[in-house]
């Protein structure tokens, strides 16, 4: 892998450690929820990162359909996969936060429900890529990704209205944010963005290597067949 990778790995590790310190020690304790509220510093940046990755998937998919570049296809795959990983973190930390605060494991909180639906859409996208046979998988996957992006605003509005009819606890509460908390939140987001970059880079290199090996296998069997 290229030289920048170890540097990114070290920066990520340092930033994550610093962000952890900020979240656990420096950030002020929240009044109503107590220390449990600190889950916020992991839950929210993970959600933002996941949404960003899915947006990248959308752009990469469009790029692929226009340019048919393999790089765009791999980027689409990678951003979807890492996005699902971050989404999973949101879906796990959300209920862990809701339980002590509200006494329930799940709530039809807008952000949590939207994350669940996004998770479902992108897992089905990844399953399609895995189950698809034939050489035109990238095209079909790109089309499904675009469908997913088209679905997102519809999902958002349907859940939003559903919530106004069935009010339920909101994870993270409403209202304004203490500037010291916002500061810690942004530090954690920066750390998770670096982690996302690191994961994407690793997955990208892995995919490139796997495709090369698969092509060489195909070429070998072709050449053996022609002998």
């Amino acid at each position, binding site marked *: 892998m290229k030289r920048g990778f170890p540097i990114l790995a070290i920066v990520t590790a340092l930033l994550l450690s610093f962000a952890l310190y900020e979240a656990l020690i420096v950030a002020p304790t929240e009044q109503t929820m107590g220390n449990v509220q600190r889950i916020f510093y992991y839950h929210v940046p993970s959600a933002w990162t996941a949404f960003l990755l899915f947006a990248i998937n959308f752009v990469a998919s469009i790029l692929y359909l226009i340019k048919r570049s393999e790089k765009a296809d791999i980027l689409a795959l990678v951003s979807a996969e890492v996005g699902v990983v971050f989404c999973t973190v949101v879906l796990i930390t959300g209920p862990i936060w809701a339980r002590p605060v509200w006494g329930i494991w799940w709530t039809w909180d807008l952000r949590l429900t939207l994350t669940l639906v996004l998770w*479902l859409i992108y897992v089905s996208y990844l399953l399609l890529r895995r189950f698809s046979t034939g050489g035109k998988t990238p095209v079909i996957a790109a089309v499904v990704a675009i469908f997913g992006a088209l679905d997102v605003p519809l999902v958002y509005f349907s859940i939003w209205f*559903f919530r106004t009819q069935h009010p339920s606890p909101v994870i993270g509460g409403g209202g304004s944010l203490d500037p010291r908390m916002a500061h810690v939140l942004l530090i954690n987001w920066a750390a998770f963005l670096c982690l996302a970059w690191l994961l994407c880079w690793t997955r990208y290199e892995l995919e490139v290597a796997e495709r090369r090996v698969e092509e060489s296998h195909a070429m070998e069997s072709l050449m053996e067949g022609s002998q």
Partner: protein
Amino acid sequence: MSFFAITRATLTKDIRLEWRSKDAINAMLFFALLVVVIFSFAFDPTAEESRRIAGGLIWVAFLFAAVVALNQTWARELRNQVLDAYRVSPAPANPLFLAKAFGNFIFVSVLEALMAPLFIAFYKLRALGPGWQLVPIALLGTWALVVNGTFFAAISLRTRSREIMLPLLLFPFSIPALLGMVNATTAVLTGEQSAKFWVALLLAYDVVFTTACLLFFELVLEAE
């Protein structure tokens, strides 16, 4: 031939072929009946509660029946290499898609027309709100399932485990439409809220995805 002529020709051909081989239709009608009965055994509420949950039950039952119908959408074309012929010919792909989608729409509507009276009987349903609204809700909701279902059925053709791939794709994408159908139906049955927002949402969903399916079907067909 014009766009509409091709669509109509394909559609009438499909209907005629389906009518001749009544086995598939009969099996699916019976499946739809079974679904209603099983749901009635599984969820046995009082008349008051049933109005609240019937919307959800009905549409989930329709969804399952629709998946069974959708799974065989392209089966005949696949068997007879019709898709290859379409790919080679200069004819546009959209009339084929629309014909398939309309055919599925008609077929699923027939299934719904059979299942609905049974639900009404088993759950002693009565609309407390404006009952006529159930018609546009049913039309918009069925189209929402069928348009994406036909499209994803075409995508699933070149996948392993084809039959499971269709619902795997369809269910997550249909969530906003499902919310719309269920809540609109519940609003009309209970008469407690207006179904307006949900109908508008269904309409938006139908417009967005019909456009998307028409835009991308040719790409998907070529990719087979």
